[in-house]
């Protein structure tokens, strides 16, 4: 049995009033791959930021290789042999492979850089990928190879412990296998990994041990061989369903939106489904599963490679006259997951934001705005979604997050569309606003609107949806009534692509 390389004990961290980590323990054996598992917001990133020196814990102690360890910054952590590889790779695209690998540890003689071909080649050979051209610019090699270069860089720094955050989320299967091959080789040579991933099947493939975090606490840990995916899922989810979801029976009507074979590899893989009037269709899945991309294709914001979108009696093909304008005209509206960048112009007045996409209704033939009519209509819809504002001409940025989100929703309502695509409508807002938004969505469906609700928060999908589909790496499961799903089945589909 290998010794313990890293021991974290009683780690706690609080941001303002939010407790991110409560008394977390983590022990990692030398020469193993240790999986860190948990839902979004469970505290994985915070814990790893503490380990890699970016954050300081409020309480708790760490030892590395038996000696006390408390890094003052990422540099000290790296010097101690702890490297973090982020999901967003931190390579400089314009520099070559060798230049990236030696970044920050260049050798120079008389001011002139001494190339470190041998060391760089040796690091790549350790990974079993000596074929990567050291002279090539990083932007010219594949994403999978970039990932390997980043690992090779940590080897060059003599790292003992390499933390990998979602390394495979954007890799094709063969690149994932190459990565696993490299990890296996290094593990045999005594390098230790902490591996963060949502893909439980892959974790089962590569990890020796695991620790599950939930709501900032370490709830379970052990040997990978002695557990099963369903048991891991149970540990991840295991929370009571809050009583915050209003649900009234909706009268399900005719098909209003039919999606056939939307295809855009690798992000979206032949997605088809139908949506009925009065139906709330939830779409679950992990970040990066292709849910947002699918909505964008349906709305015509991006053009898919193939597929067909029928909105009521109008059929669109990607690239041929299908764009947001045509969708809106046909009665299809979309609310982006990213309200600050894509949803709202936060420095402009609330009124202007809400009426952006329906200005035609409030202007005459010459493009002159009928401000009174606009203000009246906007005020009505703003009150309906219960935005708390002082003055309708105040900038959106003066509102709280929840009220900003309601403003984005108000705009979609003002469009008057019968079909709404809502992408993460409750992300990052307070509980009260969430309940208000759930109530509103429920009311809209009762009135016969058809709604697609993309969300990563399972309780809300189960709380307000009539039917549900799950996406996994671009593929969508069949749409089934919500009563035929349970949380574990959803997590299983979302992490493995199988029922």
């Amino acid at each position: 049995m290998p010794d313990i390389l890293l021991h974290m004990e009683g780690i706690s961290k609080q941001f303002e009033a939010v407790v991110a980590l409560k008394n977390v323990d983590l022990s990692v054996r030398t020469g193993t791959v240790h999986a860190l598992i948990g839902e979004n917001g469970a505290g994985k990133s915070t814990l790893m930021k503490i380990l890699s020196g970016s954050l300081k814990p409020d309480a708790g102690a760490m030892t590395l290789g038996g000696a006390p360890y408390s890094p003052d910054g990422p540099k000290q952590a790296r010097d101690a042999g702890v490297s973090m590889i982020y999901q967003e790779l931190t390579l400089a695209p314009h520099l070559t492979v060798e230049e990236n690998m030696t970044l920050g540890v260049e050798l120079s003689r008389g001011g002139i850089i001494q190339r470190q071909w041998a060391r760089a080649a040796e690091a790549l050979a350790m990974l079993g990928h000596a074929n990567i051209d050291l002279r090539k610019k990083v932007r010219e090699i594949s994403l999978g190879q970039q990932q390997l270069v980043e690992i090779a860089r940590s080897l060059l720094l003599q790292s003992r412990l390499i933390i990998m955050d979602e390394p495979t989320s954007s890799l094709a299967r063969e690149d994932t296998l190459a990565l696993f091959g490299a990890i296996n080789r290094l593990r045999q040579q005594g390098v230790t990994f902490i591996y963060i991933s949502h893909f439980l099947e892959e974790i089962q493939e590569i990890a020796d041990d695991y620790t599950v975090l939930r709501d900032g606490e370490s709830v379970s840990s052990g040997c990978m061989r002695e557990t099963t995916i369903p048991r891991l899922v149970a540990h991840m989810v295991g929370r009571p369903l809050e009583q915050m979801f209003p649900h009234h029976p909706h009268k399900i009507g005719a098909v209003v939106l039919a999606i056939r074979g939307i295809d855009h590899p690798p992000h979206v893989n032949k997605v088809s489904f139908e949506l009925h009037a009065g139906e709330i269709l939830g779409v679950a899945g992990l970040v990066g599963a292709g849910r947002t991309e699918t909505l964008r294709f349906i709305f015509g914001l991006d053009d898919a490679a193939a597929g067909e979108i029928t909105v009521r009696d109008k059929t669109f093909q990607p690239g041929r006259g299908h764009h947001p304008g045509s969708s809106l005209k046909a009665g299809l509206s979309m609310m982006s997951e990213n309200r600050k960048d894509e949803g709202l112009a936060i420095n402009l007045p609330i009124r202007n934001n809400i009426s952006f996409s329906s200005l035609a209704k409030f202007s005459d033939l010459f493009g002159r705005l009928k401000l009174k009519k606009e203000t009246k209509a906007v005020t009505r819809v703003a009150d309906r979604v219960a935005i708390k504002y002082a003055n309708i001409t105040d900038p959106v940025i003066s509102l709280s997050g929840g009220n900003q989100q309601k403003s984005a929703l108000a705009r979609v309502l003002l469009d008057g569309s019968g079909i709404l695509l809502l992408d993460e409508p409750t992300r990052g807002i307070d509980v009260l606003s969430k309940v208000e938004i759930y109530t509103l969505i429920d009311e809209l469906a009762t009135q016969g609107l058809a709604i697609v609700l993309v969300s990563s928060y399972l309780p809300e999908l189960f709380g307000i949806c009539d039917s549900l589909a799950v996406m996994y790496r671009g593929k969508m499961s069949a749409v089934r009534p919500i009563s035929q799903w349970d949380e574990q089945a959803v997590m299983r589909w979302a992490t493995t692509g199988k029922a």
Partner: protein
Amino acid sequence: MIKGLKDKLAVLGPFVGLLFVFAIFLIISPRSFISGYNLKTIITQTVIVGIGALGMTFVIISGGIDLSVGSLIALVTIVIAKTLHLVDVHSSLGVWSAALLAILVSSFVGFLNGFITAIWRIVPFIVTLGMMQIARGLAKWLANEQTVVAPMTGLNNLMNVDPEPAWLIFAPGVWLMIGLTAIVFIVLKYTVFGRYVFVLGSNEQAARLCGIKVRLHRIWVYTLGGAFAGIAGVMQFANLTIGDPTAAVGLELDIIAAVVIGGGSLSGGEGSAVGSILGALMMAILRNGCNLVGIPTYVQNILIGSIIIGAVAIDRLRHKK
């Protein structure tokens, strides 16, 4: 193999463009275009923009921009002209210390650009836009809004198309430009500092995570930009033989254009010393040739504008493939 070829094309691009422009004027302009004197004139006319472009190359590769260069050049001519009245113009020490002082002033303004950009985190476009006005204002204030007459000194020989001694062939300024180009080439390609300039513009986050002192290097980049503007200013003074607070208005745009024609990317991470000089040379040839043929300046403007857009468009096409 193909990749390697493409990389070479990136270096060759500005050179081919330059030959192309040269060939066109060879055909359409009078014989005087390729007279020794005219060729020497063209290359002398490249010096100010060329040296400015070397400094700008650092700034642009690092993902920044410096709009204050034109004003700095004017400020430098004033500082030299004023200082020459205070020193012994018969000793070369006095004369050169005037030039050195002016370059130091310009470097200090560059340092301020870098300091404000890096420490206060204000975008360089705004910082240097402001500094453009401030430096111009300082120049006018120092000069009492008039040109400043200066005594004749050895400085004036720097931009002399027929220099003394005659065996130099080119003006000393030209040799200085060539020497500086070689130095910048080596610094960018073979030194740790040069490597870091590229990383700043390519992925600042990566630089930070690798423990590189991002802010310090950014300050250095703008200080160097100021220093090169200072040297360009000395050349401008040699050309004018007086201090002129209204000199070089808008010259920063020519300098930026030279870097961009030479393969620099305004989003950072790309650019080269040789490319920037070739860009400056191309614009000088175009202006000179057009004048000889009698093409009016407004057509010159349109041509240079088209070349700037065309060079970047070709570059984009190359990256797309």
